[in-house]
């Protein structure tokens, strides 16, 4: 067991964790931050996506003990007080979810993805990897492919993200 301080959504959480614990289990089972979801626990579905130092990662493959000096953002930290994040509002407006279980991961992933695109990162569908990518629908689809949605809301997810990206 390890004593540590976690910084999540701007708040500090002192925790005593089992070295085996993933960030996902610490959030859900220890801190009652149940927004991040466990869909597969193997990095294969994306439902557990959170941001660590602003980058999207899979919290089910991240050991909590590695995070003592990192800044963690979960879906609970996206809104600005009572004002939803533009992506949250767009997801509702475009009906970009059904069961909602993949949604927190989709949202955190989209926040990270938009930052990556803004930084000029290419993707595998970028025609010329040397050029500045244009975040069209094909680019959004590829970049969001680490987040599975079994209800099949992809069309609406891409529309919602596309609206915010513009």
């Amino acid at each position, binding site marked *: 067991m*390890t004593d540590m301080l976690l910084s999540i959504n701007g708040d500090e959480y002192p925790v005593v964790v*089992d*070295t*085996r614990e*993933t960030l996902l289990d610490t959030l859900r089972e220890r801190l009652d931050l149940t927004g991040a979801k466990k869909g597969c*626990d*193997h*990095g294969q579905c*994306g439902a557990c*996506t959170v941001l660590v130092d602003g*980058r*999207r*990662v*899979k919290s089910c*493959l*991240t*050991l909590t*003990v*590695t995070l003592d000096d990192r800044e963690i953002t979960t879906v609970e930290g996206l809104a600005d007080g009572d004002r939803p994040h533009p992506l949250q509002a767009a997801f509702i407006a475009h009906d970009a979810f059904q069961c909602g279980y993949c949604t927190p991961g989709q949202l955190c*992933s989209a926040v*990270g*993805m938009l930052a*990556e695109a803004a*930084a*000029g*990162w*290419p*993707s*595998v569908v*970028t025609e010329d*990897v*040397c050029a500045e990518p244009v975040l069209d629908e094909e680019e959004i*689809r*590829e*970049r*969001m*492919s*680490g*987040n*599975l949605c079994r209800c099949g809301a992809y069309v609406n997810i891409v529309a919602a993200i596309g609206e915010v990206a513009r």
Partner: protein
Amino acid sequence: MKPFDYQRAADTRSAVAALSRQPEAMYLGGGTNLVDLMRLGVATPAVLVDVTRATSEAIEESSGGGLLIGAAARNSDLAAHPVVRHRYPMLAQAVLAGASGQIRNMATVGGNLLQRTRCSYFQDIAKPCNKHRPGSGCPAREGDHRNLAIIGHSSSCVATHPSDMAVALAALGASVHVEGVEGTRTVPMPGLHRLPGDEPERDTVLEPGDLITAVELPALPYASRSRYRKVRDRASFAFAVVSVAVALDEADGVVRDCRIALGGVAHVPWRATLAESALRGAPATAEEFTRAADLELAGARPLPDNAFKVPLVRNVLVRVLSELAS
């Protein structure tokens, strides 16, 4: 998961010392494969030595005109690096073809090279597998092997290496910088990974305690004309059925030089040296490309359910060569 101690190494020397001291210890990079294998019970380290801060994250031009990539560099930083994109586009493409955005943000360059096969039997400890339990047998040969090797496999293992990045590195002839108990050395790619033979539990030539500290790309000016093409069942977020990495130096319709490596076909990223030598000096035509591909694939020994990979590799290789030549 079995309990383990977590230690964070401050530098490479202390990391190597920690492993040599503790035989049941393993290095932890991004954790994207190792944490998964621990949860599956395939990996059971007693100690994890976190090396993400011991090795460098830097990507910088090296004295010889190449590029030196710290082992802790994240896959996404590698793919986004302007030098990689301009001078080694197939490496950027290969990295971007792997996994997902989230995984690429976590995975390190060193860890990517050391990821293990995704063969179903390997990942299920309730079943035999010579890789996870030496001597227990290989059910894949008679069982499911559609995604497994067609070349260089042995009676004890038909696994494939899953990395996309490693295929591009093998084509480029990268050198892997290794620090071990005995000091530092470099291992050329391909050459880091080994064929299964009768020791399929060993994926690489690394010795216990060896730590990958960096990967160095050679200056290969014509690699700016290169491409990675991955064939997969799903359009994204899927391992390769097969893949090819090709760099082509062609002028006036003649191949001056080329580099070719294949993914999804062997226990190692497969450098297609036979095809390369057949093409050097040959006309850059579809006929020659096909001849070279067939020459390389003559050594393939596919199993019943992956025989399709032979024509598939040939088609893709010819296609990518033709695209680069035109």
